[in-house]
């Protein structure tokens, strides 16, 4: 088992990893930027090293500084969290070269599944259903030909990354040349890779993702699905497990296919396969995230597992003693609300000093957060303040519990999206479990 893990991240996920390290008896090193010197996980870590100024490029993305910090502290492993360097195969390769274990998949497995286009090829090989789509488009003419083969409407997407960049919905041949050019420009500026492909566009999809875990001894476990349809501009706002749209049969069938794909491509550690569900309830593979996800707690609540601890143990070469999860019954229902530092109406980010912070508690309530009263939220990073997670015996109970918890959540000094969450949890589509990725847009009256 590792003696010392360097946590190459910040905020709530750094604290999450630190908690797992504490419980596993592993020493922790927190690397941080100057503005995070008083962050909670920095204060709790066994050692802390300042790696740069506020700018992420000079601190949390600064590979030489992070590796140097690992060397001077004698860390034998690095946990990259999510975002930042977590899906950077080059960083994983450098860690290996320096004799430091990267807690995640191998660089090869990360590359194979991380690139959207090769992931689709992998998926097709193992029988994961795919939305009809194309390979990389060479020209506007090629794009038009492929769009006609797939059938309009189509969406152009970037090979090199997501988050809405390099995406364009195209409904006719006439729209294609301009959309193709602008999608390529956006992809180049966002990911240094202009490649785009096209895919059938579903008007009102649901976002369903499956959690997997694999050790280095051939063990692969699928841990159920999460529904993350409530999104704004391709950023998730509320997630839940299980999905109200899934049936036990569909879940089992998909789990089988996923297990084989993960096992036979030699993928290890945590991973999440993202799918789109169309209006008929059919699932189509979109992409795989080769890291721990923000919303992992909802899976933890319905399985009773500590995913980060399992991820660390798998990375250390342990054979995980989990039961066969193929017939697992998931326990109750969990919902997570992402509490962000933003104006609830305009969505403008709202950094600043938190003067009062009173998170909710009580039965079935969990709050994962790195902030506290007196913490100054810096403008340099994402706006996530806390994840409010509730568990209930049924979805209806979980919703009631979440409304109760949101009512107790007091934050002063900055603005948050708590009011947005309250509005979402009384919306009929959400309450009836019929939401799609267009739901928030309808409620807020704002487009993508």
């Amino acid at each position, binding site marked *: 088992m590792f003696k010392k893990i360097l946590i190459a991240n910040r905020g709530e996920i750094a604290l999450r990893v630190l908690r797992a390290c504490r419980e596993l008896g592993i020493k922790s090193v927190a690397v941080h930027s100057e503005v995070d010197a008083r962050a909670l996980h920095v204060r709790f870590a066994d050692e802390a090293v*300042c*790696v*740069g*100024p506020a700018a992420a490029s000079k601190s949390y993305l600064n590979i*030489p*500084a992070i590796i*140097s*910090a690992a060397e001077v502290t004698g860390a034998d492993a690095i946990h990259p969290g999510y975002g930042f360097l977590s899906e950077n195969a080059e960083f994983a390769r450098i860690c290996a070269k*320096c004799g430091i274990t990267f807690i995640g998949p191998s660089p090869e497995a990360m590359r194979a599944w991380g690139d959207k286009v090769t992931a689709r090829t992998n998926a097709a090989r193992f029988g994961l259903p795919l939305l009809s789509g194309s390979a990389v488009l060479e020209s506007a003419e090629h794009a038009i030909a492929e769009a006609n083969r797939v059938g309009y409407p189509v969406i152009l997407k970037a090979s090199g990354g997501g988050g809405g960049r390099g995406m364009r919905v195209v409904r006719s041949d006439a729209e294609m040349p301009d959309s193709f050019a602008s999608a390529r420009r956006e992809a180049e500026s966002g990911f240094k890779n202009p490649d785009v492909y096209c895919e059938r566009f579903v008007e009102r999809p649901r976002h369903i993702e499956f959690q997997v875990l694999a050790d280095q001894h051939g063990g692969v476990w699928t841990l159920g699905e999460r529904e993350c349809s409530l999104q704004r501009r391709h950023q998730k706002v509320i997630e839940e497990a299980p999905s109200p749209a899934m049936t036990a049969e569909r879940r089992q069938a998909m789990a089988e296919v996923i297990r084989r794909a993960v096992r036979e491509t030699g993928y290890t550690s945590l991973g999440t396969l993202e799918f789109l569900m169309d209006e008929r309830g059919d699932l189509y593979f979109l992409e795989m995230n080769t890291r721990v996800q923000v919303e992992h707690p909802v899976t933890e609540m319905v399985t009773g597992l500590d995913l980060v601890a399992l991820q660390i143990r798998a990375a250390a070469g342990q054979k995980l003693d989990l039961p066969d999860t193929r017939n697992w019954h998931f326990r109750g229902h969990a919902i997570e609300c992402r509490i962000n530092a933003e104006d609830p109406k305009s969505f403008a980010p709202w950094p600043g000093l938190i003067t009062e912070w009173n998170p909710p508690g009580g039965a079935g309530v969990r709050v994962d957060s790195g902030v506290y009263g007196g913490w100054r939220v810096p403008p340099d990073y994402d706006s996530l303040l806390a994840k409010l997670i509730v568990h209930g015996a049924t979805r209806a109970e979980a919703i009631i519990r979440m409304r109760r918890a949101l009512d107790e959540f007091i934050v002063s000094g900055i603005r948050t999206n708590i009011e947005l969450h309250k509005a979402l949890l009384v919306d009929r589509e959400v309450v009836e479990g019929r939401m799609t990725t267009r739901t928030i847009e309808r409620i807020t009256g704002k487009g993508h």
Partner: protein
Amino acid sequence: MSLDLDKLSALFELLAEKDIAEFEHEEGGVRVRVSRQIAMPGAMAGMGGVGPWVVGSPSPAGPGQTAAAAAAAQSASDDAAGDSLDVTSPFVGSFYRSPSPDAPPFVEVGSVVRPGQTLCIIEAMKLMNEIEAECAGTVTEIFAQNGKSVEYGQKLFRIKKA
């Protein structure tokens, strides 16, 4: 506006937060001028972050207020206000005072240095990086310990400017 330390401290924080370089206020016979030395962008081993506060002297005022302003000015200059420069580490790494284990250190307390003169080496990822003096002056303090690891922004030397 009375010049007590708590208010001055809150004022400094507000100015830093809003990234204001200079501020002047006059009220009730007291004039306060505060200016911040902003670090030069791209400075290698120079000021690692916000420079020291310099509190301007107030116009004639009551004794209590002048004493408070003087006290504030004193604590500002203790922190290298204007005539000294703190050299901070631009990397995470190991700090070495000599070019090699047997060689004498690059500088000692009392050494006179010129701009561009090597002060120390910081080893990061097997690369030796020489840290140079940004100004001419005399080394008055050596904060970091030979062979020990240093983090980004950590104080290494104080140089009294010539």
